[in-house]
């Protein structure tokens, strides 16, 4: 599982950590039942405060992606599969967009218009 943060970004660090975990779950890098690294280890590796990681884990727990257990730490839940499905759909969407000759910005604009 790759966790990447950019301290220069406007997005809060705990959001960036959570986003990395979300992507790892969607990509199948971590599967339901897998343990995430202990918050203290992850914080040390990323050179951030341990509370930043704990906040990210709490956010992911609220989203239903992970469970926080007393002894085993953060464990990926079964519900995380939803993300995998979403990821598959996005993959199809990108393939279709490529075939139609759309570049990423155009596809992005299309999605944004839908959301609005």
């Amino acid at each position, binding site marked *: *599982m790759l*966790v*990447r943060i*950019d301290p*220069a970004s406007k997005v809060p660090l705990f959001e960036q950590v959570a986003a990395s975990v979300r992507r790892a779950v969607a990509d199948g890098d971590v599967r339901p039942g897998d343990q995430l690294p202990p918050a203290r280890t*992850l914080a*040390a*590796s*990323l050179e*951030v405060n341990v509370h930043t990681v704990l906040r990210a884990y709490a956010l992911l727990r609220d989203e239903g992606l992970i469970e926080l257990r007393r002894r085993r730490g953060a464990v990926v839940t079964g519900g995380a599969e939803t993300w995998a499905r979403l990821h598959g759909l996005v993959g199809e969407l990108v393939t279709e967009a490529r075939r139609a000759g759309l570049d990423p910005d155009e596809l992005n604009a299309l999605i944004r218009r839908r959301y609005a």
Partner: protein
Amino acid sequence: MTQVRARILLATLGIPAVAAGLAGWLRLRWADRLPDPVAVHWGAGGEPDGAASVDTITVALFCAGGALALLGATLALVALRRGAAVLRWLLGFYAWLAALPSAALVSTLWANLGAESWRAAADAGWSLVLLLGGSAVAALLGALVGPSVPARRGAGEGGDRPSIGLAPGQRATWTGGSTNRWLAASFLPAPAVLVAIDLAGAADVPLFLYLVVTVPGLAITAALSRLRAVVDSTGVSVRMGWFGLPRRHLPLADIAHADADRLGMLAMGGFGVRVNPVTGDTGYVLRGGPALVLSLRSGRRVFVTVDRPEQAAGLVNDLLHQRSTAPE
């Protein structure tokens, strides 16, 4: 490339051929001073206890030398073709092996020199010195003549190395590993056999025997069933087993670059912490399949069997790049 190939052939075929030529010339020169048959085998006390005709041992040893030389040359050329490392001393070893029969011929004939019959042949002692010394010279020449070719893989241009596109200022860490549940369960048959013996009434199995079999089995398989690796800006850490032992930390400063590769099931000769004394490579191996390959600045490599190693290799390369471009 042709020059490299010529030097390999010179070491693996040329030197044994020179040795064979020398042996043949000596055999002809000594022809009238040799008994026939000659002593070819010596007992533990140094007394000759076996004989063969001069022509038989000459032909047999030349055939053996020729076959070994062809084998060595083929192995070296195949290794070169496949991009594996061809090491100088390995060519020396091939030259030694192929020159050994010729050296054996010379030393055998030398021991028989001037003897009335094969039973009067000299002690094996000095012949042995001649045999080892002569073949050692061939080994040395082979190593001197032979080229040292580093492994092609990993030594290529840096353009196609894995990368995760880590931008300057970004921080990242990768956590991963692998498990091998089959390996963890591999000790279970041992106590099962004891139970079977006990139930069949073949023998009364005492309780302590179960402990003797089960406890070390559990400990060893626990140590070998799980592997975790962490990549961050300090380097790469590898921890094996449920206890995290053995563990190793490779500082980023020691690493030249990283790749993702597939490891054959027996590529490192088994499971566990494997060290190849020839290449200096180390493997933390739980299974065959995808592995992170770290090429160290010392020229050695470290293999770690982790699932999906591409990101790990990419992150190591990007961190190395970040390090080399960062202002001190």
